[in-house]
Structure formats: structure tokens, C-alpha cells
């Protein structure tokens, strides 16, 4: 096992070994969640602070359940919700976090890079639970786990990501996590919602852009639909939600173009009837509920790896 990270900020610089370490530990954590008593003691006496400066229910609850399943104490800090004035106000929060003495800070923030700012100024381990449009590493890891569980080895598997790639930290983290595992990725979505450089061919290795969703799905091994933020229409990037749904929505007919039995995923919360048809979201190929369960286990694995052991200096393991 290769693991010597102090924070989980982004998976963009992770090796395949590190990703596989987390996925392997996740498998052991899934087993804990299936026991009659869904709790193990490794984080007894540790404090996990959940600092969510941007609204989130499922990710926060997922981290909370993960921390509690490992017997950690959990404290919540929710920001007032006022517009985020980075710098002073975030710095004040960091000083509070430092004074509270948490062992792990899990944070979500509307500004890209905010977790890096905190990680440099606190003794705690920092886990990025989503920062702006930048990264959502635990979502990338749980998607990788879910896909590997469904498809086996991801080498040469072709995964389609469809929707608002431009504003999606999920898409970026999925790409950064799936590529080192050998997967190939096809992006699809309205050209206005794809980063310009990517749309014009300057794509990362093993990633392609296909402007026709039907062609993108032909023979694919899995599809991940992204959530459409409704306010994108107001900003002029979309003609209408109805048109989006007609051209980019995942319907049963579209899903049938993929390899037989290929799974459908979505990071949630879904706009059913817009980016995904209810029959697909709740159909037999849907792994959307598995993603939620796996999310708790992935977060347990990361909390264990960051805070499960004690001191910073390795000592010899006893027999």
C-alpha cells in the first residue's frame, strides 16, 4: 500500500497506486456497513469538523455517517450563507477551526482553491468536499469504485460523461480519477457547456469530445449524467430546458445504444425529466443508489487513511 498524504484536496496528482489503495480500503469499509453493528473503533477520540460554506445535504450527511461509523466525534460548522468574501472571512474561520482542534476538516466552498488555503493554515487534515468548479475528489473516487465494482478492471473501458462539463467539479474529478485507472472518456454536451479548449480539440490524453450524444453512447461501457444547474439557462448558455432535455437527456432509447447492461450513474441531486428520464434513473441499469452507499464507504476509507493512525513519524509495526 502506498499512502503518505496528509490532505485530500484533488486527485489530479494521484498515482494509480494511491487511487487503488483508497478503492481497496473502500471494499473493507463496505463490509463494515453491512454488519449488524455498523461501527468500528479506529477514530475513537478523534474529531471531524464538517465545514460546509455552500449548501449540501447528501455529501455532508455522507461524511457524517462515515465519521460516525468509524467512531469519530463530529461537529458541524455552516457558513451564514452570505456572499463569500475570501481572504479575511475565510481566514477567520480557519482560526476558529484551528482553535477547535479538529483532527480532520471536511470542507465545501463556493470558491475554487479554498481548501488549499485552509490546508496551509491548519494542523488538521483537510478533505475537499467540493470547491467551486474545481474539484470534488470524493465523488470522483466513489464513481471510480462504483464503476470498478460493476465493470471490473477499467482498462480500455469507455465511459461517457454528459452534460454541463464546463461548470462541473464532478466531471473534472471523474476524469482525474478514471484516467489513471486506464479508462477512456467521451465527453458530450452542449458546446456552450464544454470548456472551449476541450471543445476545440485540446483534450487530455484518452479523452474525446462528441457533440452527438447518440454517437457518444454507441457501444459505451457506462454513462455518467451531470446535474444541470437551472440558472445556466438564465445566463444565456442554453436556449431552454425543454430543448436540453430533448437533445441531451438520458432516455431508455439512448441508454440502449450502450453495450448490453452498461450502467447509468448520476452524482445527484437529479433533475428528473431534464438530464435523466425517471425510467432510466430508477431502472435496472441505474447505479445511482449504489453510488450513495459507496460514497459513505469511500469517505470512511479516506478518514481512516488520514486519521486512523497516530503520530507523523513511522515506527516499526508490532507483530
Amino acid at each position, binding site marked *: 500500500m502506498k499512502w503518505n498524504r496528509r490532505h485530500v484536496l484533488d486527485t489530479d496528482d494521484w498515482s494509480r497506486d494511491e487511487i487503488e489503495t483508497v478503492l481497496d480500503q473502500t471494499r473493507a469499509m463496505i463490509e463494515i456497513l453491512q454488519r449488524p453493528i455498523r461501527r*468500528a473503533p479506529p477514530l475513537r477520540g478523534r474529531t471531524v469538523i464538517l465545514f460546509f460554506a455552500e449548501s449540501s445535504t447528501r455529501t455532508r450527511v455522507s461524511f457524517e455517517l462515515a465519521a460516525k461509523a468509524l467512531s469519530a466525534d463530529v461537529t458541524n460548522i455552516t457558513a451564514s450563507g452570505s456572499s463569500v468574501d475570501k481572504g479575511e472571512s475565510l481566514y477567520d474561520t480557519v482560526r476558529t477551526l484551528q482553535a477547535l482542534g479538529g483532527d480532520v476538516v471536511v470542507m465545501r466552498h463556493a470558491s475554487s482553491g479554498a481548501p488549499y488555503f485552509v490546508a496551509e493554515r491548519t494542523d488538521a487534515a483537510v478533505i475537499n468536499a467540493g470547491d467551486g468548479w474545481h474539484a470534488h475528489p470524493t465523488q470522483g473516487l466513489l464513481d471510480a469504485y462504483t464503476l470498478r465494482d460493476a465493470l471490473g478492471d477499467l482498462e480500455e473501458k469507455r465511459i461517457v460523461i454528459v452534460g454541463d462539463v464546463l461548470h462541473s467539479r464532478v466531471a473534472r474529478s471523474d476524469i482525474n480519477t478514471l484516467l489513471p485507472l486506464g479508462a477512456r472518456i467521451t465527453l458530450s454536451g452542449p458546446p456552450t457547456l464544454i470548456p472551449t479548449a476541450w471543445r476545440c480539440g485540446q483534450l487530455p490524453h484518452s479523452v474525446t469530445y462528441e457533440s452527438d450524444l447518440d454517437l457518444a453512447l454507441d457501444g459505451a461501457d457506462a454513462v455518467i449524467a451531470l446535474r444541470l444547474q437551472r440558472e445556466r439557462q438564465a445566463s444565456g448558455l442554453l436556449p431552454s430546458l425543454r430543448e436540453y432535455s430533448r437533445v441531451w437527456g438520458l432516455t431508455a432509447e439512448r441508454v440502449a445504444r450502450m453495450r448490453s447492461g452498461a450502467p447509468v450513474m448520476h452524482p445527484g441531486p437529479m433533475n428528473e425529466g431534464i438530464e435523466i428520464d425517471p425510467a432510466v434513473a430508477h431502472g435496472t441499469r441505474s447505479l445511482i443508489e449504489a453510488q450513495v452507499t459507496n460514497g459513505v464507504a469511500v469517505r470512511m476509507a479516506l478518514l481512516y487513511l488520514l486519521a486512523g493512525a497516530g503520530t507523523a513519524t513511522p515506527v516499526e509495526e508490532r507483530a
Partner: protein
Amino acid sequence: MLLAADDVRRAITRIAHEIVERDRDLSALAIIGIRARGDALAARIQSAIRANEGTLVPIGAIDITLYRDDLTRIGYAPVVRESEIPFSVDERVVVLVDDVLFTGRTIRAAMDALVDYGRPRAIRLAVLVDRGHRELPIRADFVGKNVPTAPGDDVRVHLAEVDGRDEVEVVTRVPA
């Protein structure tokens, strides 16, 4: 060398007999090995009991990493492996199996983990080697071989499933 391949085989056969004699009701019996070598021993005890009695006793594997009492004292998070207990332990007589019994701390951790799965009627302990130097009030019910050792000695159990061969050796630390 302490035990050769044939000694290991005979020790396991004997332990299998002792387990059956102790608890004649095989329907309530289950064998759970502690990873990484106890699970291999559990499978061998299972086949020995099957050969003698014709009954297939359920087996499981348990990983005790998350229950170690020294987690906060080691510098890195050790690998957690998946536990597999595909049956209810409630009201069963569970025989825990490990390769070496030393301080007893692993067994304490295994018992803590086991009760998270339910309430066994009894927990018994089978080990291939008991090398002494207990730090907790724990003793084994079934022992392959008792071996007097010095605290600094290293008892190495090799099993075909994990290490490619069956052998137990004691490496004595020579004072410098």
C-alpha cells in the same frame, strides 16, 4: 525449524478432533480465522472436520486492523482487509483461529470485532503455535504446539496458501 510440513498437517488434524470432541453439536459450530494466516488455517480445519465427520462447518475470516489497541501509536494507517462472515454468529460456538498466540492483543481485538457481528454462545481459541509472553488474561483452548521463546524471538509461520510452503521456524535474536 520448529514444525515441518508434516508436523503442521498433523497438528491441524489433532486440533480438528479436539474441536469436535469439545462441542459435539456441529450444527452450532463455526470457525473464523484471523487474517492473514488464521483464515487459511480455518479452511484446513474445516476440511479436516469434513474428512472425519462428513459435516461442512461454516468458516469466515476476520480482519482486526480497525480494532488494534496500538493504532494511535503507529505512524501510518495499516491496510484494512475485508472481513467475510457469511453467517450469523448469534448462538453459535465460534472457534477463532490464529497462527501464533503471543501477547493476546490480537485475540482481544478479534473478540471485540466478533461481538459487532452478534452474540456467540461461546468463543473458543485455536492456535498453531503458543509462544507465551501474554500481556492479557487470554489462553488458547486448542494448541498445535507450545513453544518456549524469549520475548525478542521471532516465530515465523509459513503456510502454502500465503507463503508457498508449510513450515514454522523460530528465529532467535542473538545478543550483539
